[in-house]
């Protein structure tokens, strides 16, 4: 568990990068930090592993004040993906990824096996890339090596600064999914910085939205954030298309289905499971070009969803009658 209480950072020239922020990340939770460029996301992240010392406030990990800890030991237990990637230019890709396990005294063979596995995971074929140097990789490839490097030591806590920023959407979605699965399976606590609100909504258990000047504007679940932005800034940041964005977080609601009677089976090109999101439903609808899609739970057909039904579901999800744990700091 990570807890920030009144944490702030003012740079030497007087720039206030972060203003007294209170935040909590439960163990096993993935928190996304989003916000406009320059709002203090990276600064906040680096204060957690003490690459930057806060000017005010206190930071605890599992109840221990980090300022009291040996920074080296602290960081050993925290994976870190740096925004500028920062690969070691003098080491081959494989060696770069093996670095942290070796640091902690692991065996070479184990570190190597793990590194090869992780290179696969981030979509870099070890046969091609393991023996290259960083300058022989493309921008997105380098970034992925950076992610693999941070994952290699299997740290219980991970800090990631725009880990997928330079990667194309196909690979990104794959990485996001893989990473999310890994994180859930292993119960890792993660703080992930992104400027991509879609990524934040898709990946975060909670999302912290920062406003310019390092103010924490809202700290909430993705659904809550989209449904009830704490203020105009958040609403604006989440986007005028936030309704549409909800497509990807709102599940199909059986109550809003049209009855299946009178619909001939031949008219139903595609069918989706009831747990699917509205976005998937709409995509299926467009793919099959039928103006509707069947929704079932296992073998049981529950009804059909029409565009109108999607719209009603969206509207329902935006109505204020929803339970949340949102906090909107002062």
């Amino acid at each position, binding site marked *: 568990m990570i807890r920030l209480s009144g944490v702030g950072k003012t740079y030497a020239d007087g720039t206030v990068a972060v203003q007294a922020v209170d935040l909590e990340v439960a163990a096993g939770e993935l928190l996304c930090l989003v916000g406009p460029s320059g709002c203090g996301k990276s600064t906040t992240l680096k204060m957690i592993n003490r690459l930057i010392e806060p000017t005010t406030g206190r930071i605890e990990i599992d109840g221990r004040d980090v300022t009291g800890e040996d920074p080296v030991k602290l960081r050993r237990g925290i994976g870190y993906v740096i925004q500028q990637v920062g690969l070691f230019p003098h080491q081959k890709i494989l060696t770069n990824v093996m670095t942290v396990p070796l640091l902690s005294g692991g065996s070479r063979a184990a570190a190597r096996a793990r590194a090869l596995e992780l290179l696969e995971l981030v979509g870099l074929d070890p046969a091609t890339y393991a023996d290259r*140097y960083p300058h022989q990789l493309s921008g997105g490839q380098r970034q992925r090596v950076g992610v693999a490097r941070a994952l290699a030591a299997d740290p219980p806590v991970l800090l990631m600064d725009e880990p997928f920023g330079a990667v194309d959407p196909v690979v990104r979605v794959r990485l996001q999914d893989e990473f999310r699965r890994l994180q859930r399976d292993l119960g890792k606590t993660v703080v992930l910085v992104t400027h991509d609100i879609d990524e934040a909504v898709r990946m975060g258990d909670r999302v912290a939205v920062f406003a310019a000047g390092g103010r924490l504007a809202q700290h909430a679940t993705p659904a809550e954030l989209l449904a009830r932005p704490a203020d105009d800034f958040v609403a604006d940041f989440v986007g005028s298309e936030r309704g549409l964005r909800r497509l990807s977080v709102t599940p199909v609601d059986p109550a809003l289905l049209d009855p299946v009677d009178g619909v001939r089976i031949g008219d139903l090109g595609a069918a989706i499971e009831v747990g699917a999101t509205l976005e998937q439903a709409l995509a299926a609808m467009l793919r099959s070009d039928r103006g509707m899609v069947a929704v079932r739970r296992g073998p049981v057909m529950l009804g059909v969803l029409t565009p109108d039904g999607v719209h009603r579901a969206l509207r329902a999800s935006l109505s204020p009658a929803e339970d949340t744990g949102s906090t909107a700091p002062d």
Partner: protein
Amino acid sequence: MRVLTDAWDYLLAASSWTGDGGMLELLLQQLLLTVTALVLALAVGLPVALGLGHLGRGGFLAVNISNIGRAVPTFALLAVLVTLDWPGYESFGPYGRAGVATLLALTLFALPPIITNGYVAVREVPSDVLEAADGMGMTGAQRFWRVELPLALPLVLSGVRLALVQVWATATIAALVAGPGLGRVITDGFYRSQYGQGIAGALVVAAVALLLELAAAAAERFAARERRDPLGTVSQGLRPAG
């Protein structure tokens, strides 16, 4: 160009090389002197320079102090050292008369390039790489050995190479205190108006300096090949492009 033919003759004469006090013996003596002084300077200078570079402080002072050692002409330093009770002019093993004084003067002379390059090299490691190293929980020592030193190495080696060549060329001053080395051939020649011999001696010093330079460069290149692929030129390989 009378002197050049004389120099050539001197170089070709077997008697100039062989025997007691022949150039071959003097050359080996000077080589020993050079290598010893360099090793001493490395033993003292590298830890200081790299350590301070790693800590990121005190560099100005260290460089400055080592520089001061070099600001006093080496021959003056040597002349003073031999008049002192210690180190004096006592013979010191294969280093000959005033061996300790000569080694001391040459070591002081070798320090500045080693310390200056070492310090600057470590300080020039790109900050994003250092941030990554710190961020993954490297201890100071690990960061030093695994990141800073490898990245600083080319510049550090260049300093060592420079020191090597300069010490070799300067070791001829041992002749001033009746020490060993090729300096004798040169001073003898010039003081006796036997310019051919003097120039021959200087040529041998220059030739060996070049050989040392080439050997050092080859060693450096070999080390570099061990460390990185043959495609990336050293400069590209050294710098992150991102």
